[in-house]
Structures are given as structure tokens and as C-alpha cells.
């Protein structure tokens, strides 16, 4: 295959990626957009087997074997994952992509080093810089994504991890990366690049550790954009136009997306990222033994039965309990009784923006019942009952009243303005961000403890009996 034909097919794949991102930005075309992207990636992968100086490609059986191995690992993971665990799987996929980009850059660097040693010609400065960038950022993205995975999977604490002198350790680490980059630039040998990789791996860990609970999705999005840029830089080293286009598209759109996500949460991107440098150990509201009002499923059913308008606020607990079908049953039952029912969807309820929409759509909840935060907030004063199911931080008034708390400034659902508040909670444990919620002690609040699905089932049968 000629270079021209190869590049032309690459252009087709690049157009597919642009259309994919465009499609993914609108609900109606999102699924098609993803399929177009997959088609582009398939074309790009197939065509590389037919381009080269000597066909078939050298090491072909091993290459095919490695692809099959990747398929065996990746496809079942993607198909079997629970809805609740999708965010961390995306984080993991992003991390391995970053790792792959770093490895590609290292191999190409070793190869260029060998050629330079043989032929005497030095490696171009731009290529060296692109290589160093890819190794540093790709490896950072790899280890950083693994930490976000561990946080979301709750295999480690979801709180910000802040250790004394952290900012100096990070600064020292960055200086070491810069010095080592200079070494790689001048030495062009294997040891230097491996040391650089190790330093970057440490940086990835240090970078993500101080990020707390609710900010983790923003960091995943940012690392995703990083990985895109490393792919673009690898494309520069390999002179592969398609990689430059695809990587840059992801880098640019990922940056915008990260900003949009941060805005939706009322966070400054800067504050999220450099929290490590400014953070002091925040005082977490002390879990005091003030009285709370807990009720039975029957109490809740009675409150609901005589309400005219009910707003359901779903959160991560709904996803964990897989209670989306039960909550729909409850909503249908209330609608049948002539009660006006709506779902108040906080943009970052759950572990990821849009998490709740995906979950409730699975239970075939009608679109028009899902109301976004800006639209539902003015209606709370006319709402008789708000049911909060497994959510906490997104209704926590501390976001408005307590400057300095980790979620301060995040827009919340104003459930405290409704007539009655019902919390379905597993326990008094604070939410993902680890902040005490004053609303739990509000006289208007009734708590129903237990697994969301079990509690909802009880409420449904109690309501049917009324």
C-alpha cells in the first residue's frame, strides 16, 4: 500500500473520530457517535497491517497474539462491569492507554538511540522533547488513574490524603523529573529513560492522593485529556498523522469537558488540581450524638400518601443497592394516586456526572420526570416531600453555609425548602466527601435506615396497603 493511500485512510479514521465526539455531545446521536468512533478505530487498526516496507509485518504472530490477549482482558471487563463500577473501569482503561503511550515512546526512543549510535546522526530535538513529554505524562496518567480507581472502588480511603510536607515532596519530585528529563535529552540511553519513568510514576500517585472524594471524576477527566496529548506526542515521534489528530482531539475536548464538569460542581479547576499545595487537613464535622428522627416504612408511606408533590433525589446509594426499578415502582404508584412526582437530578450525584440519568434510564423512567438541578430548585418550596435515596453531599447545606468545608461552593439541591424530608440511608455515616450533614438533624427530616432497595420495597408495600 502506498503512503498516500495509507494517509488517506488515516484521514477517514480521523473524520470518524471528529464525528464520534460531535455525536457523543447530543443525547440522540450519542450511541451512533460511539459506533462511528469504534468504526474509525477499527479501520485505523486494520490498515496498519497493510502498510510497511516489508509485508507481512515483522513479528506478526506476536502482534496478533498481543491483540487477542488485550481483547480477552478488555471485552469481558467492559461487558460484565456493574453500572455502579463503570466510572472506575473508565479510569482504568484511561490509565492503561497512558501506559501504552509511554511504552511506545520508550521503544521508539531506544530505537532512535540505537540508530543514532550506528549512523552517528543525533536524534532531533523536537522528537526528544515529544518523547520525554510522552513518557512523563503517560506514566503519570497510568499511576494516577490507578489511584483514582482504588479510590472509587473504595479499596483505599476516599478522603484527601494529605501528609506533612506533601507540597515539598511533590515539588522535589517535579524538580527531579526536570533534571532527569535533561539527562534523557543528553544521554539517550536506557537507564535514564527508565529512571524518568519511575519518577513520573511517583508523581502520578502524589498528584492524585490529595484529591478528595467528589473531585475524583474531574481528575479522571483531566488524566483522560493528558493521555490524549501523550498519544498526540507519540504521533509526532512516529510521524503518524492519525495519532496526532486523534490524540489532540481527545486532549482538547477532554480539557473542555474537565472544565464543564468542574463548573457543574461549582469547583475551580485550579483549586481541585493544586489542592495538594494549598490543602490543610480540613476539620471533618464531628459525629456527635444529637438526636435524629428515624421512622418506619409505614410512617414514610403515610407522608407520601397525603402529599401533592414529591421530589425523589437519587444518589450513589441507589446505584449501590440497584434499587432503580424499585424506585420507579414507587414513583408509578404515587403517580397512580395522583401525586405529582419528579426526580431531582444533581449533575454529580453518584460517582460521575450523568450517573443517575444512566441508572434511571435503565429502569425506563420517563425522561420528563428527570429534572435538572437548575429547574427543580425553584419548585422545592411547593414540594411537600423530598425523598433522598442514598444521596448526601448533593443536598448538604454545608456547601452554602460552611466556608472552608471541602464541598463549599458546590451548588446543591435545595431540599431543605420542601415541607418534609425523608432520608433513606444505610447508616449515619457521612457521604463520599466525608462531611457531616446538618439536614439529618432538621426537625422536618425523617430517617429510614437500611439498604435502599429493601427500604423502598417496604415503603411500596406500605403505600399499597393504604
Amino acid at each position, binding site marked *: 500500500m502506498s503512503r498516500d493511500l495509507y494517509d488517506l485512510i488515516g484521514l477517514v479514521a480521523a473524520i470518524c473520530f471528529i464525528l464520534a465526539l460531535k455525536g457523543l455531545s447530543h443525547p440522540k446521536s450519542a450511541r451512533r457517535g460511539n459506533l462511528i468512533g469504534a468504526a*474509525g478505530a*477499527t479501520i485505523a487498526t486494520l490498515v496498519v497491517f497493510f502498510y510497511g516496507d516489508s509485508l507481512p509485518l515483522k513479528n506478526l504472530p506476536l502482534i496478533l497474539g498481543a491483540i487477542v490477549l488485550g481483547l480477552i482482558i478488555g*471485552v469481558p471487563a467492559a461487558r460484565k462491569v456493574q453500572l455502579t463500577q463503570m466510572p472506575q473501569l473508565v479510569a482504568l482503561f484511561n490509565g492503561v492507554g497512558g501506559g*501504552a503511550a509511554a511504552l511506545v515512546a520508550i521503544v521508539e526512543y531506544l530505537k532512535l538511540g540505537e540508530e543514532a549510535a550506528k549512523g552517528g546522526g543525533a536524534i532531533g530535538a523536537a522528537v526528544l522533547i515529544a518523547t520525554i513529554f510522552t513518557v512523563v505524562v503517560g506514566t503519570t496518567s497510568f499511576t494516577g488513574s490507578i489511584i483514582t480507581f482504588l479510590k472509587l472502588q473504595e479499596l483505599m480511603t476516599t478522603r484527601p490524603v494529605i501528609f506533612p510536607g506533601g507540597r515539598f515532596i511533590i515539588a522535589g519530585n517535579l524538580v527531579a523529573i526536570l533534571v532527569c528529563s535533561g539527562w534523557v535529552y543528553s544521554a539517550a540511553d536506557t537507564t535514564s529513560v527508565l529512571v524518568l519513568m519511575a519518577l513520573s510514576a511517583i508523581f502520578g500517585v502524589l498528584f492524585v492522593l490529595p484529591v478528595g472524594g467528589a473531585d475524583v471524576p474531574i481528575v479522571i477527566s483531566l488524566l483522560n485529556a493528558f493521555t*490524549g496529548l501523550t498519544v498526540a506526542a507519540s504521533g509526532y515521534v*512516529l510521524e503518524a498523522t492519525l495519532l496526532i489528530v486523534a490524540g489532540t482531539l481527545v486532549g482538547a475536548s477532554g480539557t473542555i469537558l474537565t472544565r464543564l464538569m468542574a463548573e457543574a460542581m461549582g469547583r475551580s479547576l485550579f483549586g481541585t488540581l493544586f489542592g495538594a499545595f494549598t490543602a490543610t487537613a480540613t476539620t471533618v464535622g464531628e459525629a456527635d450524638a444529637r438526636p435524629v428522627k428515624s421512622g418506619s416504612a409505614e410512617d414514610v408511606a403515610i407522608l407520601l400518601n397525603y402529599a401533592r408533590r414529591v421530589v425523589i433525589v437519587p444518589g450513589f446509594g441507589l446505584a449501590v443497592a440497584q434499587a432503580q426499578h424499585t424506585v420507579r415502582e414507587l414513583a408509578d404508584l404515587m403517580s397512580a394516586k395522583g401525586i405529582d412526582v419528579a426526580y431531582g437530578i444533581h449533575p*454529580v450525584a453518584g460517582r460521575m456526572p*450523568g450517573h443517575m440519568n444512566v441508572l434511571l434510564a435503565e429502569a425506563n423512567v420517563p425522561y420528563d420526570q428527570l429534572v435538572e438541578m437548575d429547574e427543580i430548585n425553584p419548585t422545592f418550596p411547593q414540594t411537600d416531600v423530598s425523598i433522598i435515596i442514598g444521596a448526601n453531599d448533593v443536598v448538604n447545606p454545608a456547601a452554602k453555609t460552611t466556608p472552608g468545608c471541602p464541598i463549599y461552593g458546590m451548588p446543591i439541591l435545595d431540599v431543605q425548602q420542601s415541607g418534609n424530608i425523608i432520608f433513606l440511608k444505610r447508616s449515619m455515616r457521612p457521604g463520599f466527601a466525608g462531611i457531616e450533614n446538618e439536614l439529618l438533624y432538621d426537625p422536618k427530616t425523617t430517617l429510614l435506615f437500611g439498604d435502599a432497595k429493601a427500604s423502598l420495597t417496604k415503603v411500596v408495600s406500605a403505600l399499597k396497603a393504604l
Partner: protein
Amino acid sequence: MSSGLALISIFVLAVFVGFEVVSKVSSTLHTPLMSGANAIHGVILVGAIIVASHSDNTLQLTLSLLAIVLATINMVGGFVVTDRMLEMFKPKKAPAPSDTSDGVK
């Protein structure tokens, strides 16, 4: 135009396209969009295949094969998981959930 400059021009133009293409997105689609973009950078697989086919010693070959495995997971897994997320958005006709369809080949 030198080849290096041509590549940089492509880079700069792609930055603008990337900014434009996602300027307005409802928060509902933030996660699927991130996941889809994540799958797209899996095309590093192409780069991994190229370096693997040029490798002539064990170290280079091992590293590049590892890169192929990781990149394949990123790309294929990414598209499949995005499709699963978006499956929830499809227009509802039958209440019975349809069979999970395959995103990629």
C-alpha cells in the same frame, strides 16, 4: 513546509476542532463523552503495532507487545463500555431489556 512544521500545523488545527466539537454538552452526557474520548485515544494501538513491527531486540519487543495489550484493552474496552452506558439512552419500545449488543467488531 517541512514535515515537522506540517505535523505541528495539524496539531494546532486539531486543538481548535477539539474545542469546538464539545463546547456545549449537557451534564447527562459528561460521563459517556469522557468514556468515548477515552476509547478514541486507544488508537495508540496503531503506534504500538508500528513500533512492535520495527522491534529488533527482546527488550523493545517485550515493551511494545505490552503496549499492544494495554492499548487494545483501552480501545476495545472503552468503546464497549461507552456503548453499554449509551444503551440506556436508546428510545424505549419494549420493556424487556434487549440483548447487550456488541460495540466493536
